[in-house]
């Protein structure tokens, strides 16, 4: 569309920023990427997200939208090609339910697993697995994605959780997305991360591992 100006304020390792990048790419939207240094936030970021001072922020023709899931819904409403949310209100409600569940239940348990050690870590991992198992029930057998035949809102929202689960599994030696107990979710994650348009947006694994290892060192300075 002529005269459209889309700017995206993100951070390379930010999971929520990745959601927006995926949405922009899936819709084929041209945008200017502005990389933020989270230890030295730009005046632009503070101007466009004064309430939370966080990435991601989408600025469309000078108007800022913050909060990744709200941005994705905004993108879906403005750019109609490749719809991310279903049309039917009940299906939309289900999609919104699952993304909320993922953020409010799955993520905190995974954070606990990441931050804790020993028995507490195992307890947190168990809780995370239970939530992930529940999340799996949002997947319809025979359908590739949460969105059905095509990638949708829930896939984008939950996708990074899958990436992060792999990181936590590796760094903390736990099982999260377990193939045996969560075959559908495991298969979904494998498929989703291999989709070219999704894959090309994911930062290099070793860089992500290194970045997250950095948090671990800060948390437990005496760990090897």
């Amino acid at each position, binding site marked *: 569309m002529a005269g459209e100006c889309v700017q995206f304020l993100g951070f390379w390792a930010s999971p929520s920023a990745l959601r927006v990048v995926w949405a922009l790419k899936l819709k084929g939207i041209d945008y200017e990427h502005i990389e933020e240094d989270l230890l030295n936030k730009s005046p632009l970021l503070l101007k466009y997200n004064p*309430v939370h001072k966080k990435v991601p922020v989408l600025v469309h023709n000078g108007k800022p939208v913050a909060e990744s899931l709200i941005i994705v819904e905004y993108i879906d409403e403005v750019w109609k090609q490749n719809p991310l949310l279903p049309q039917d209100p009940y299906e939309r*409600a289900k999609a*919104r339910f699952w993304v*909320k569940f993922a953020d409010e239940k799955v993520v905190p348990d995974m954070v606990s697993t990441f931050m804790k050690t020993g028995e507490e870590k195992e307890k947190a991992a168990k809780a995370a697995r239970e939530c992930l198992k529940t999340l799996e029930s949002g997947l319809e057998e025979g359908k590739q994605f949460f969105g059905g035949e095509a990638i949708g809102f829930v896939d984008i929202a939950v996708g990074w959780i899958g990436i992060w689960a792999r990181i936590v599994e590796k760094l903390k030696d736990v099982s999260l997305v377990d193939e045996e107990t969560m075959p559908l979710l495991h298969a979904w994650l494998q498929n989703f991360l291999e989709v070219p348009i999704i894959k090309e947006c994911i930062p290099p694994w070793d860089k992500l591992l290194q970045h997250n290892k950095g948090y671990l060192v800060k948390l437990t300075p005496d760990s090897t």
Partner: protein
Amino acid sequence: MAEEVKLFGACGSPFSSRIQVALKLKGISYEYIEEDLTNKSPLLLKYNPIHKKIPVLLHNGKSIVESLVILEYIDETWKANPILPEDPYDRATARFWAKYIDEKCVAAAGKAFWAKEKEREKAVEEAWDCLKTLEGALKDKKFAGGETLGLVDIAANFIAFWLRSFQEIFGVELLTEEKFPDLFKWSEEYVEHPIIKEYLPSRDELIVFLNKRLQNLK
């Protein structure tokens, strides 16, 4: 079309009240089912197996849960008296503030009310920060739709009524006229809105609700 609409709610719950307000705004007939939160019904557990909470909207046998999700569902299904604006940017703004109210303000207020003595001061300051941000949003006309109630107005029921009632009950001053004059004034007018007013619990009902919450927390 024979629509069957049921709402599982609890008297005293702000989240339940939100849905009643929305259904009334849209002129939707429904059956209301009062849940005893200390003794949840098999139907509630069937229709919200994951969270086991109210409110739950049942529409022609399909259940929708989580109050903000329900509000959007209602708006998309019944088009009269829209709760969300037409313009995508305005919609995003409305969603932002509704989310802010639920994720930051409700949580901060809860922390302040339930905080132990030594943690109280910090919790109260955090709640004040939230209210300060809301006061700014009010000044920028992000809510207070006047005659018509929008998503943010409906979501802000907690701030206008429940927060103010709880602060009296708990003896923790959060939303005062002195600190937040515009927000305070808005809350006074808000609770007088005819539709809002209809679905506000009495003081006694609120106390019963609080006691049940306490019971569940133990």
